[in-house]
Structure formats: structure tokens, C-alpha cells
């Protein structure tokens, strides 16, 4: 078990008029090497959960364990946890603070005590992988466009080569190519290096495309937790809690409603799968066996 939440509650500003019970009795565990999507309406508690992951927030009750040890216990080094669990925050502005883009991305590796040579190597490789070339190295992070800031923030975390990568809406502000390339890269790291990934997203299409498992939050409560395919069969419940299902799933459900039958085992979650199934249905009919 890599990360485990046991009956975690989090209350912001307890016993004040602003008291907000943001996370309510949430339990789950994430194995090393899983790719988990974390979904939920705005204000459902996703970012709060994420800040609990690496000890930025302490549970009001319950506990968060990393490889079996409670991260709030004294023998745990926060510094170590933070280099092992890399977090890309929802607002990239909150993690960019150095004077140049290159220095910013070096910050993590530097903090880990790596030699300067290696800091730079890692930073440059990470910047290249998020599509920022040399012309960006000496720019101030504050001069970057919205999507460029996002890319720089992601590079900063990638450069630390963490064991687990927690991404809070990483694709917000990215253009479609950047989104596909960066999430594609993360999937590759997941496949090849066994990286553990938690991806917060408001895009059902994205969750369907990348996550094996999804956890759905609703008003601070964990409402669904299961294989992606299974969770997206709950179209009605998901839309009642501010979410929905991927576009392809909606299209198949409209077609079924209008009497077009498809086998139960088609892959409705991916474009490729949808194209295959849609094509086969028409070809079978033309071949005479409907």
C-alpha cells in the first residue's frame, strides 16, 4: 500500500463562522503503480484531499499513511515525503517563484541536494518534455502565458522524478496538443517506470482516457470508487452531482435509446474503441447479419 487514507476528516477554520467541513470520513488506499482519476464538482474537496496527501494539511481526524507510516508522526521527514510525492498544484502561480524559468525548474532537484550539473540536466530534460524550448530558460515565470506557466510548473515537479505524481487539474489552461503530449508523457512514465499517478480533472473524457480507476467526491464525501468503466455506467448519478460521462459514452447511450444495439463489451471510453464499434455495426448490417 503506497498511500492510505483512514477515516480522514478535514475542517477549515473550525468553530468560526467560516467553518467548512471539506472532507468527510474519507478512506481509500492507492497501490504503487496505480493511475487514479479524482473527480468531483467544484468545491467537492479534491484540492483539500491533495494537500492532505503530502502533509501540507493535517487531518482534523483520521490518518494519512505513506508506505504504512502515518505521515504526521515524528519520525517522518516532510522533506523526504515531498520529494517522493510530487504535487502539481491547481494554480501554477503558487509554485513558480524563482527569477527565471530554468532556475524555477532546478529548484526541486537543488533542494534534493543533487549536484548542479544534474539539476540543470534534469531541468532541461523536463522543460523539453513539456514543450518549453531554450528561448524560455531566461524568461521570468511571471511573463509566461497561462498555459506556459502550467507547463513550467509541471516541469518543476517532473524534474524531481518523484515516486508518485499528484496533479491538480493539470490540463486546465493547456492547449489540446499540450494536454495530449503532457498527459501522454505521464502515462508513459506510469507504464515504463511504475510511477503512481493521481489525476484531478474536470474532464470526463480525460479521466476515461488515462485513469484505470476513478474516485468521485461529492460535498466532501467519497461517492464512487472503482474501475473507470464501471463508474461511468452511473451517468444519471454523475450528472446529478455536477459531473457527467465522456462524450463517447453519451453518444452510445443516445444510440441505444434510439434502438441501435451494440455488444456489451465494446470500448466506449476511447475514440478508437468507439470508432471500431460504430464501424462494425454498420458493416455487419451491410453484410446482412444485423
Amino acid at each position, binding site marked *: 500500500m503506497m498511500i492510505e487514507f483512514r477515516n480522514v476528516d478535514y475542517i477549515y477554520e473550525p468553530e468560526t463562522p467560516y467553518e467548512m467541513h471539506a472532507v468527510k470520513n474519507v478512506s481509500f488506499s492507492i497501490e504503487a503503480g496505480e493511475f487514479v482519476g479524482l473527480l468531483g464538482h*467544484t468545491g467537492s474537496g479534491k*484540492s483539500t484531499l491533495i494537500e492532505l496527501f503530502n502533509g501540507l494539511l493535517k487531518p482534523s481526524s483520521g490518518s494519512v499513511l505513506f508506505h504504512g507510516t502515518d505521515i504526521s508522526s515524528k519520525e517522518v521527514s516532510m522533506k523526504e515525503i515531498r520529494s517522493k510525492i510530487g504535487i502539481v498544484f491547481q494554480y501554477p502561480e503558487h509554485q513558480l517563484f524563482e527569477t527565471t524559468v530554468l532556475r524555477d525548474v532546478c529548484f526541486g532537484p537543488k533542494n534534493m541536494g543533487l549536484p548542479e550539473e544534474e539539476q540543470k540536466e534534469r531541468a532541461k530534460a523536463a522543460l523539453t518534455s513539456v514543450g518549453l524550448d531554450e528561448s524560455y530558460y531566461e*524568461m521570468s515565470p511571471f511573463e509566461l502565458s497561462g498555459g506556459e506557466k502550467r507547463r513550467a510548473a509541471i516541469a518543476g515537479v517532473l524534474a524531481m522524478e518523484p515516486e508518485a505524481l499528484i496533479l491538480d487539474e493539470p490540463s486546465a489552461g493547456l492547449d489540446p496538443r499540450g494536454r495530449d503530449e503532457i498527459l501522454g508523457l505521464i502515462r508513459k512514465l506510469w507504464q515504463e517506470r511504475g510511477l503512481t499517478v493521481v489525476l484531478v480533472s474536470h474532464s470526463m473524457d480525460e479521466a476515461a482516457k488515462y485513469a484505470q480507476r476513478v474516485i468521485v467526491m461529492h460535498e466532501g464525501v467519497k461517492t464512487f470508487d472503482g474501475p473507470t468503466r464501471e463508474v461511468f455506467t452511473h451517468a444519471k448519478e454523475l450528472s446529478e452531482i*455536477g459531473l*457527467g460521462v465522456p462524450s463517447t459514452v453519451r453518444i452510445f447511450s443516445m444510440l441505444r435509446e434510439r434502438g441501435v444495439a451494440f455488444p456489451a463489451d465494446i470500448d466506449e471510453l476511447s475514440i478508437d474503441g*468507439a470508432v471500431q464499434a460504430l*464501424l462494425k*455495426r454498420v458493416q455487419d448490417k451491410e453484410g446482412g447479419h444485423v
Partner: protein
Amino acid sequence: MALIDIHHLFHSFYRYNESGEVAGTKEALRDVTLSIEAGTFVAVLGHNGSGKSTLAKHINALFLPSKGQVLVDGRDTKDAANVLLIRREAGMVFQNPDNQMIANVVEEEVAFGPENIGVPTEEIWERVADSLERVGMTAYRMHSPDRLSGGQKQRVAIAGIVSMKPQCIILDEPTAMLDPVGRREVLRTLHELNEKEKITILLITHHMDETIDADRVIVMDDGEVVLDDVPREVFAHVDELRSRGLDVPVPTQLAYELKKRGLELPEGILSEEEFVDAYMKLCK
């Protein structure tokens, strides 16, 4: 006369070294000429760094042309005397709502705009209530903007502009952090403001599906306008859009892939409903 008239607009950013010399130049806008009629709903697409936010800031007179001219309702942004009028007429919702929250309470945040332009007090509160209702944030009236979630902040920022009843609203990725239902609500709000109150909408977005009901889609690439047409025409250029870092809505993509494999589907499918209708015909 068009509401927004942009003539051969150029914008350069300069970077200086310690001794004050220019160490680098970035041409963020290159020879942009556009004219937007009052009452239209315009979507702006483009890869990261293509110049969308820079263009928006010109319309709001936050940036001045390095070369060329921007007229809002006939007023030149370069004339300092016009700036306040221009900002009143062209309200802007910025890319990061975090940067534009100043009040302690949501209600005050939304009242700030109308107060500034001298709306009478009773009417201010009416407008505040109405705009919060439109974005679904009435329940958070008395909350502190600091303590809202990302999506909630975004909606408050939109309410803040709506309450000023401007002629034109420019929104820089307003739905980037909203959940699917929130996104739909904001889009519906924008279309309602456009249809009922004839407010001109300029929507910058990375979500292709948000643009299918726009009157017009403008595509930017490296500081230039490269496509400018109705959504159906723009999204017919699947390969070109991809080469420019963009994409097409999922139903358009499905139709495109199926056509490539020999199915007879019509051109110009944008919505899920259109796709389903067209596909049904093949199953008859």
C-alpha cells in the same frame, strides 16, 4: 460601424538586461486585423502563447499597440481620455480569477464594478443579486472570496462583470476550472446574455466543444489570425487545426474517422445530437 475594430495590430514584449538594453523581443501579435460587430458571439482559439490574452488586453485598453490601432465603439485605446469608457463597455474576466478578487465578501466583490461606474445604491444590490443568481452563487453571497474553490471563484468573477452590464464581455478561459455542469451553466449564461441583452461575447477557450454555438470562431497561431469563420467551416479543417496545436469536438472527430474508413456521413457535424442523427441514417 463595428463595435471592435482592430487594424494591423502588432504587440512586442521586450526583455531588458541589467544595463537596460533590450536582451530579447517577443512578437506576441503580428498584423492582426479584425472587426467584431455588436451582438456577436465570438470564440477565440489558439495554442499556448499564440497571443489570445494579449489580444484581449488590447481590447480592454490594458495594453497599447506597438503598432496599429484598436477602436472600441469608435474610441481609440491610445487616447487616455477613452480608457475608462472603454473598460466600462468592454468588461474583462481574466485568466486567473485569484488575481482579481479584492473584497472580503462575495457580495461586495460583485458590487465593486457597478459601484465604480456610479450605479445608484438600490440598483447595485438588485444587480448583485441577479448576477449571483445567474452564475449559481447566491448561496455564497456572504462568503469570503479567499475561501472559495477554484470553480466558485471563476463564477464570482463572471458575476462581477455581468453586474456592470457592459456592451461587451471578454472572457479569458472562464471555464478552465469548472466541473461539467458548471461549464454548461456558464456557457448558457453567456449565450443568454448574448441573446437577451445583446451583449457581445468574446470567449477565449481551449475547449473546442464550447465554441460550436458561437457565431464565429477565430483561430490564432503565433500571433496571427489564421482562421476566422463560422464553427462548421473552421472545424472542417481537422488536420490543419491539429497541426496548429488544436483539436475538434469529439463528435466531429468520430465523424471524421468514420468517413476516412468509408462511411457516408455529412460534412460539418459538431454536436453529439447531430452525430447521432447522421449515424441513425446509416443504420436504417
